């Protein structure tokens, strides 16, 4: 695993190292603005270049966060197959472009992408009647990844990966608080599998197993791993970590009552992003805590009205948040989930707010560091399905090749490949 420290060292190195200029006589520019025909597959193409031991430049804030790559027949064929729009540039044109992007005063920067990160998606093998937006995004963008789950995490396999994704996971061990589905095959299987793994690792309860997994993930980040999490995987990760010394799981899920002093015994020092939150101890509610602000107010609960806005960052001085917010739009259609948005009052001070719900004191997308690694949390379930219910059919990304919401997910897969040149002081 490439550590965050080495990334930082690279950050400190001067521009001259990263951008000695394109070596090829001709380059390919993949613009990521409105001219792009398939934004999502463009990320896959950039990733593909890295897997071919080639480098690429990510031109932050230039035409929606464009990619500049050495031209080759194979690359152009890949771009065409993926329906990715590109432009050919001569060597001098691309050199001029990089110089222009790197010049002061235009809030743009060029970041060298060097190595394809090893990606792990934390998800069960079993089929569950909801969909994982990142699995959808990675599969559609044709980005390779490994699926890992509790066994692999506890057996120390996280160290093999640069980037870990979590989605709709309940780290509190309450199986998503889907009590009403307890007699369905998928719930029973999930419960039995979790119990079996818990027993295998010497835990009496699923919540204990999941806490161990959460703490292992925390250690992974501390040691330089990159973590991206969505929907329930954000909220419950912190909830489980905070509850490491108490029991917040109702009897319906683990066979014994919650600790009556659970609320007082939460330890926020262990969490990634949130503080001062309280768990929802009602076993029949699918809410897990007050980190999630829940559905938008009725007047806003409409896909055509519900938007969130991305923050602008200095590309040269805040390259990481800039990378994570690259997009061809500044307002992105909202979407809900079991965790829809984060209560701004419960976000820790050191965490960077990447996107917010306007005038609602709610954060949609955030980023922070822990030890030598970083984490990025994105609230909501599926950027292209406003309200995705259990059992709904999966989103067909062929219908959403320019999805700004999915772009935010895919920004995260390239971020670990980057060696930004400057760092915020």
């Amino acid at each position, binding site marked *: 695993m490439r550590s965050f420290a080495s990334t930082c060292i690279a950050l400190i190195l001067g521009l001259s190292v990263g951008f000695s200029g394109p070596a090829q006589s001709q380059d390919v520019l993949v613009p990521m603005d409105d001219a792009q025909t398939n934004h999502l597959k463009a990320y896959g193409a950039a990733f593909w270049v890295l897997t071919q031991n080639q480098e690429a430049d990510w031109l932050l804030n230039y035409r929606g966060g464009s990619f500049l790559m050495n031209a080759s027949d194979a690359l152009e064929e890949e771009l065409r*197959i993926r329906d990715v729009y590109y432009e050919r540039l001569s060597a001098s044109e691309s050199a001029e472009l990089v110089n222009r992007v790197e010049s002061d005063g235009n809030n743009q920067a060029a970041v060298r992408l060097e190595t394809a990160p090893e990606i792990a998606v934390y998800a069960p093998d079993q089929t569950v009647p909801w969909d994982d937006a990142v699995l959808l995004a990675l599969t559609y963008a044709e980005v390779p990844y490994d699926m890992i789950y509790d066994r692999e995490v506890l057996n120390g396999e996280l160290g093999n990966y640069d980037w870990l994704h979590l989605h709709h996971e309940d780290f509190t061990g309450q199986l998503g608080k889907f009590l009403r589905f307890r007699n369905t095959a998928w719930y029973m299987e999930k419960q039995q599998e979790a119990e079996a793994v818990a027993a295998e690792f010497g835990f009496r309860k699923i919540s204990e197993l999941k806490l161990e997994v959460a703490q292992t993930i925390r250690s992974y980040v501390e040691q330089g791993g990159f973590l991206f999490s969505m929907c329930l995987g954000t909220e419950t990760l912190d909830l489980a970590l905070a509850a490491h010394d108490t029991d917040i799981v109702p009897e319906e899920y683990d066979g014994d009552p919650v600790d009556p002093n659970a609320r007082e015994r939460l330890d926020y020092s262990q969490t990634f992003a949130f503080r001062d939150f309280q768990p929802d101890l009602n076993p029949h509610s699918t809410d897990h805590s007050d980190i999630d602000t829940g559905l938008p107010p009725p007047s806003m609960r409409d896909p055509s009205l519900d938007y969130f806005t991305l923050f602008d960052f200095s590309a040269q001085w805040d390259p990481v948040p800039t990378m994570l917010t690259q997009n061809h739009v500044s307002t992105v259609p909202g979407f809900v989930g079991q965790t829809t948005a984060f209560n701004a009052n419960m976000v820790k001070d050191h965490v960077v707010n990447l996107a917010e719900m306007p005038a609602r004191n709610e954060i949609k997308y955030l980023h922070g560091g822990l030890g030598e690694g970083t984490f990025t949390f994105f609230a909501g379930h599926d950027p292209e399905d406003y309200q995705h219910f259990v059992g709904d059919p999966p989103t067909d990304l062929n219908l959403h090749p320019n999805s700004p919401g999915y772009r935010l997910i895919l920004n995260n897969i390239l971020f670990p490949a980057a060696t930004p040149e400057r760092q915020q002081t």
Partner: protein
Amino acid sequence: MSFSGVLAFLRMLATRALHRPLFAGLHDASSRGSGRGTSSWNATWTERQNLTRAHYALEMPGGAPLLISSLMSPTVLLGLFVGIALSLTASSGHAQNRPTPPAPPAPTAEADSFQQAQQLLQRGNHERAIALLSGLVDDYPNRLTYQYELIDAYEETKAYDQAIALLEQRAGDTPSVSDLADLGRLQYLAGREDAARDTWNAALEQYPDRASTYRSVYHTLSTLRRFDQAVSVMERGRDALGDPEAFRTELAHMYSLAGQHADAMREYVALLSTDERRLRFVRNRLQPFIDQSGDIGDALAVLEEAVADHPDNEAYLDLLAWLYAEQEDYDQALSAYTRLDKLQNTEGDRLLDFAEQAANANAFAVAENAWQTIQTTFPETDAARLAQKRAGDLAYRRWTQAPPFTDEATRFASEAWETYHAAVEDTTPREASEDYGEMWMRIAELALDTKQDLDAARRAHAALSEIESYRQERALLSGRIALRAQDLSTAREAFASLSTGEPTTAVERTAQHRLALLDAYDGGMENAKSRIEVLLGDLSAAVANDAIALHAALRHFAGPDSTHAALQYYASGMLYELQHRWSAADAAYEALITEIPRHPLTERARYHRAALAVHLEGVDASAQALQTFATQFYRHPWADRALFEAASLLEHAANEPTEARRLYMRLIEQHPRSVFASDARTRIRQLPAS
């Protein structure tokens, strides 16, 4: 105890009943009212049984639940029945004469404290509730209710040691089975698993000859999801009771939950041996476990053995056939359903249903075998006729889905043709039905589209006269046959009989299109245009593409003079293609190209010539001609279509995947926004690069 005292006591019990299910042990964990331990309440219930203190719920005339406790003294019971009698008397009288109900009893300090403690518990104020309950337990040491509530309260605060101490104190030297079961549960929750196991053993040893002993402990263990241990308890109980049928359904379910699927199946087999009507119950019980990963281990082997030992047991065989099918082992399922069909004398009905399931799951060979078996085993039956039709339906469906000009398409067409013919020959006119009509219609389709057999189409047309509901289809077929026989006036007449101002059915729309084409062929361009415009309202209809193509030609390529010569050549070509007169069509398009070379329709005519070359010169020639068209007229709106069709021909009909891939690549390079681009990209990923 006074009458008001009785009512106060009853109210207290009723209040308690509202807070938790009376027979909570029969409910699962989620049905608990306030998240308290089911097992403890179950133990409470069991103990009450042991102490002959069972409660019974009655419904008072006023609707409020009333509990009668045999705990009460005879005086109390007498008072209760007097109360009920009074109430019934009152309810039977006139409303205006109804006596005033007795005033509610004054609350006692004891009842108030208890109610307050319960409210505090509900609000999560455990500390004060425990203090109140402790006081009540001290003041009324014989009131079990207070003790149970306090034990629950301790448990809710995870004060397991206090709960255990109180339970042990209450149970004294002679703990009941439920006390011990509950005690074991609390010890388990406190993390003392060995002590819990010893306690449960003690419970089992107390009354080893009572089934309730094992039930009590088993329920406790199952709520703790200790399924392996629960299984052991029931197995032990069964041995001790000397009753091999004891706990059968519970044990079977527990085995499944513990992943011991073979043992579960043994129980279900035993259950079905005594009552075959429980088959549906068994299926429902097994379904979730099959739906999960589909792996039920050795359960299948157990059932297979049972079937082998008892070949005449219908329930066993039925379950086995169902299991095979659920696990998508269609070959084995076919064998099992074949035997079942014979055993049940259903004359193919069971097999017929199974074959449909197999066909829908794309297990085509199995479905075909099943249909064949039905026909040979039960000839002359409805099932056999239906099997034949469904076999034809499958072949017909596969023909429509197969890429054109492939051996596969030809084979399916022939299969459908032969199967449908055999089926209609086995059907007498008096049996004529919707199925019969549908088969004849498809025979006609095949006769016209693949067999070039007008006589067969005419026979189908004649046969359809038996079925009134096929009147429209028959008229359309009449027109199509006439068209193919080059009898255009008859064709027009037949299509006109279906013509309406606003065609709504597929048949009417097709007839409308054909009439428009005939008009154009005859030079009646305005008539053709007005006819075809009606069809543009519904672009989802099957004939929409043909209608759009004709409309575009009529609208954009009229002229250059009033005879619309180019358009007429073009319409001729289209009509000849519809008639499968490939050479004539080619000649018409060629005439257009040579005689009016500057007309824009010539480019379309060239495309048509390239496409229909597949009929005249073969696949490779057509693919080459289409590529040439795409090269020469790369800006033509049909250039992408030409490339895609050429690539499809090379991929499927000529089996040249590399060349096909090259053409798909060319398509997405030259026409990235084409409607064919997405399909081309999919095909590229499927085909080898070299």
